């Protein structure tokens, strides 16, 4: 498909005036409503985020599972950004490194990890 040749032609003064008028309509209230920018809404109204981003991975297993070396260390090896550190006492997730990819939750044995509703990933005002 070759491009429309009319686009290469010169525009008459009238059509240029007509198009600029159409453009002004677009900036006016009527159609601009469909372009709601959350940039403009942001400080007053929170934008809707889907559950995945709102959540972050959290360790929900027992201390026995933590001391079981094979299960807990799996999460550490799975994480692509090395955000997880597992020791015998604690299970630490670094928020700055986590990209919320969800691999640790998806592939860990059941009952070990969970995507919690703790929304500290986004700092709400």
């Amino acid at each position, binding site marked *: 498909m*070759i*491009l429309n040749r009319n*686009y290469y032609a010169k525009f008459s003064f009238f*059509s240029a005036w007509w198009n600029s008028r159409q453009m002004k309509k677009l900036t006016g209230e009527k159609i601009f409503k469909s*372009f709601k*920018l*959350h940039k403009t809404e942001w400080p007053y109204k929170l934008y809707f985020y*889907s559950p*995945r981003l709102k959540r972050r991975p959290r360790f929900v297993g027992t201390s026995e599972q933590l001391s079981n070396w094979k299960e807990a260390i799996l999460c550490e090896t799975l994480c692509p950004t090395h955000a997880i550190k597992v020791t015998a006492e604690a299970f630490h997730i670094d928020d700055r490194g986590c990209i*919320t990819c969800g691999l640790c939750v998806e592939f860990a044995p059941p009952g070990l990890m969970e995507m919690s509703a703790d929304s500290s990933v986004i700092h709400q005002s």
Partner: protein
Amino acid sequence: MFNWKEFEKSKNVLSMVGDAFYHEENGQHHVHIRPKNLINWIEMIRDDLGYLTLVDLVAVDRSKFPSKYPYGLELVYHFLNMGNHQRLNIHLHFNEDEVVPRINSFYPHADWMEREQAEMLRIQFDSPVAGLILPQGQSQFPLRKSARIGNWNLEVPPEKPHIRINPNKSEAPYPEESHVWKKFDVFSAETMGNFDWMVCFDPASVIDSKVRIGLHHQGFEKLLESRSWIQVLQLVDKINLGSAPTYATAWARTLEDTYRIKIPERAQALRIVMLELARIAEHLTVLAEVTLAAQKDEFRFFIDAREKIYELFEKYCGHRQGLGLISIGGMRDDLPYGWIIEYQAVNEILLKTLKTIHHSLIGQRHFRAHLEGAYVDAQTVLQWGVSGPTMRAAGLNFDLRKSQPFYFYQDIDFDIPVGIYGTSYDRYLIRLEEIFQSLRIVTQVIDNLPLGEVSHSDFGQVLSEGKVPESVSGWHFSSLESSNGEAGFFHLPSPDFSPYRVKIKTPGFSLAQAVPYFMKGLSENQLRSSLASLGIRRWEIDR
């Protein structure tokens, strides 16, 4: 379109030639040779067989398993024949002390590729190669298997301060008084943070320029070698954040092609939808950059329209740019309820507003004057191995969605816009037209969305049982049409489920190389809009 009859024909031709070992895999030709035969082969395939494009070049250090592989190094040249859609890999096996001939006299765009591989892996070419990406005085070779990351000794030779006697008098080869070199660095608006750019003006228009890259290099390919296949899938999104699902799909498709995994129909359809939405988002970004560079207020509407696409991604997967959508063997999740209605609303808004913005823009003489230059003809495009909208604007009708259709692309009705003059204005028009074509594709797919599951567990079985099919011997290259050109992955698997060597083929690398040849004859205020219309992304140049 690719067909097997043509494949058999060229297979017969290629396997007849002596001095080489031939085999075929996954619909691509593979030829194994030694350095002394290289020039003969290159001449033959370029002049007689019509392989006009060197898509990518990758070197690998094979010294990890010396018993399996007698030679220390391997260079793979990947060629594309646009006439009959054949892909040919030439594998060059050599030891460390052997000298490899350069092929940049046959394929000019091999220049940067050879320089990059030479400094990453210490390959001895028959003529001296200058460094490209790494800092000067570098004595390490990061992509060697023995190289460690960190604690490098930088032996930078002390530089003499360069004092210009007459600041207006410029250096050779443009020594006249009237020729002025100007420098646009990474922080300037002209280069948009991509590279350092030295431009020579005769004082009004550009006659030559030099590009210096490597300012964003972070060893991404080395990083991926230490990650498993699934982790790589999460990390490759970062190469082009504006259209994240593109590279994730390319990576997933590389693995699925290698291990012959068939993904369910619904996942294929959803991948097409996400690829096209990513293409729309990226095109809108470029259009906004072009419009902003031409000092028009309309750029805000392109950004707003892109925001609508990002909202769709966000409702699907939670991330604005569509990160982590893809899983190997299908998609992560099914579509949420109500997503299709949301899409239809967005479709309507885009169709209604984009036409109005476009007509208002091209009616303005000032805008057209900004985009008039940067004339690119088809020969230059082929010479510099450029693909995507830049190639199509020069009048070449080639699109991987048509020529090597994957998933459902052969069943969908859509057109490939082709430009007439090859200016930045053509590139602008093509990007705008492709947005409408992409909307057409998505609407068709969503109208006929197949039912069923969205992912197979096949790949999980391959991983857990440690079963890798015997037919998989090594290299595979697969690519798809991203918004700025051909994007894909060269992959050599290793037995521990991580890549032994992965090379990312990005359109931005060849575009950045061709910038000095595309930008001749422009005036200074056209530079920014012309560069923006190429769509170069910084992570694509320095992987």
